[in-house]
């Protein structure tokens, strides 16, 4: 096809112009078609299938789809593990992203300064984001080991753990992933570790977009550093802080890797999240229908995030 089109281009100027316009009309849709086809076939259709599954009784053993109405949703909703998973999913996302936004703001301002070894510092700080998440989490798994955790070693050394009457009790270890509270905190910690670099780079992009003139003018007018931050930098970078936050929410909200590698939802389902519960129910348990119903509880939040992003994108176009 390309050959024909190229051949036809050897027509002199006047005629070519009309020809180009003609071909552009066909060429444009033709060139978009493969991408659209891919997206429809492997995102659109599966998405619809997920919705259909959730209303049916399909399992890996019995692949025929018979509709059962809202049965799965009812079943899922009265399951206490599901409720834990739902609230954990929201809790982990909100807690980690609140921390990430605050920390990334501080880190971004620091990285905006000039100092020696900046390239190395940046590389090291970005590692948690640039390395595969499953592998980074494996590192944490060993650091939070029930016996050999270096944190426990430090606490024992500091005299806070492992002797009768000390602050954290006589046991030699804290069992980070074995106690529900600590396990939940560990999951949040790993999410913060993982997403801090992304938020930092996004915030740096925001900071570097503020014009120096504006800040200097404010300084000349006598605004102190704090006032400049509160009244110029933060309001001007608010949209981009919003974007960092929204991406962070999407990534933590839908992530399965951290919980799967770190705790598998344990101890006794207290760190279970929607994505891991979908996996355990739908794939390991073979109940595709219920798995699909669980996963679709992610959808409202994602739809909300998507519409917020669309609004931001539109605003960016206007200004």
């Amino acid at each position, binding site marked *: 096809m390309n050959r024909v*089109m190229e051949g036809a281009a050897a027509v002199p100027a006047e005629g070519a112009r009309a020809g180009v316009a003609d071909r552009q009309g066909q*060429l444009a849709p033709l060139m978009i078609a493969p*991408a659209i086809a*891919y997206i429809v076939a492997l995102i659109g259709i599966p998405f619809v299938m997920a919705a259909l599954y959730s209303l049916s009784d399909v399992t890996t053993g019995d692949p025929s789809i018979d509709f059962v109405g809202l049965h799965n949703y009812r079943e899922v909703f009265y399951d206490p593990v599901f409720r834990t998973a739902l609230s954990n999913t929201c809790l982990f996302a909100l807690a980690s992203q609140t921390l990430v936004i605050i920390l990334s703001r501080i880190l971004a301002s620091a990285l905006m300064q000039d100092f020696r070894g900046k390239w190395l510092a940046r590389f*090291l700080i970005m590692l948690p984001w640039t390395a595969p998440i499953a592998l980074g989490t494996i590192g944490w798994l060993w650091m939070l080991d029930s016996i050999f955790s270096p944190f426990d070693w430090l606490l024992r050394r500091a005299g806070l753990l492992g002797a009768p009457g000390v602050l954290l009790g006589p046991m030699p270890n804290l069992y980070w992933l074995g106690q529900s509270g600590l396990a939940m905190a560990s999951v949040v910690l790993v999410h913060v570790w993982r997403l801090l670099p*992304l938020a930092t780079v996004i915030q740096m992009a925001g900071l570097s977009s503020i014009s120096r003139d504006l800040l200097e003018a404010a300084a000349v007018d006598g605004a102190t550093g704090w006032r400049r931050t509160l009244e110029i930098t933060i309001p001007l970078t608010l949209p981009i802080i919003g974007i960092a936050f929204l991406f962070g929410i999407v990534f933590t909200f839908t992530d*399965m890797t951290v919980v799967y590698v770190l705790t598998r939802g344990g101890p006794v389902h207290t760190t279970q999240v929607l994505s891991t519960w*979908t996996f355990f129910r739908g*794939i390991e348990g073979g109940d595709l229908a219920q798995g699909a119903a669980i996963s679709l509880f992610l959808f409202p939040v994602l739809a909300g995030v998507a519409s917020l992003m669309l609004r*931001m994108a539109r605003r960016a176009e206007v200004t």
Partner: protein
Amino acid sequence: MKPIRKLAARGALYALILSFASFAVFPFYWMVIASFKTDHDLFNPAANPFLLNEPPTLDHLRLLFFDTHFVTYLVNTFLVGVAVVAITLVTAVPAAYSLARWAKGWGETLGIGIFITYLVPPTILFIPLSRFVSDMGLQESLWSLILVYPTFTIPFCTWLLMGFFKTIPRDIEEQAMVDGLSRLGAMVRVVLPLSVSGLLTIVVFAFTLSMHEFIYALTFISMSVKKTVSIGVPTELVRGDVFRWGPLMAGALIASIPVSVVYTFFLDRFIAGFTMGAVK
């Protein structure tokens, strides 16, 4: 400004950067040190865990490379990555060019629509896709990953390239067309050579994303020799309840570092895509 205050500010800056860097790097330091520790040292709760208390050993590395499928995981990851990059280039480049150049109004909307599909997570899609993969007979085959990974690389890369193509002046192409090239010819021979850095960005992005992917690989593949590093290292180096920490850490480290180095160079470009023009 008073020199003492200036010095203090510098010191505070370095202290801040240093503490953030330590937080980020500590798990990787932990991998390095575990990779070279003898088992005796590694499993001694009384020894200082931050240091090598016994002479370093290469046993873990030997075990990793010769007694596990680690090299196979690396090869699988590479094969999948290259194929995904190829599919992404072939679909995203023409789509992005077409949207950036020829589509008015609806093109922008369509572009944003494509980007939004990037937000549909594997967590929702892996259940129906697992059925699709088994219907196609692709279970336990790298082809299942090659087919499915472009679902997250195509939307983002199309969006990224769209922004990139818009920065190339139209005049250049128009000049080329006056000189007798067709529309398509102008794109292939004039615009693409100017876009090498943009194309390189999506190559890196598509490769790293497919290397990072976990859920699909975990769902579609359970045969040891077909695994990628992302799932092979966490699932296969654990025998029952026994974690072989030395080789496990070495494997995680070796697979992480090279890709991170390359990724870092391109990070700013990805961020430009993420921020969707909110920064100008």
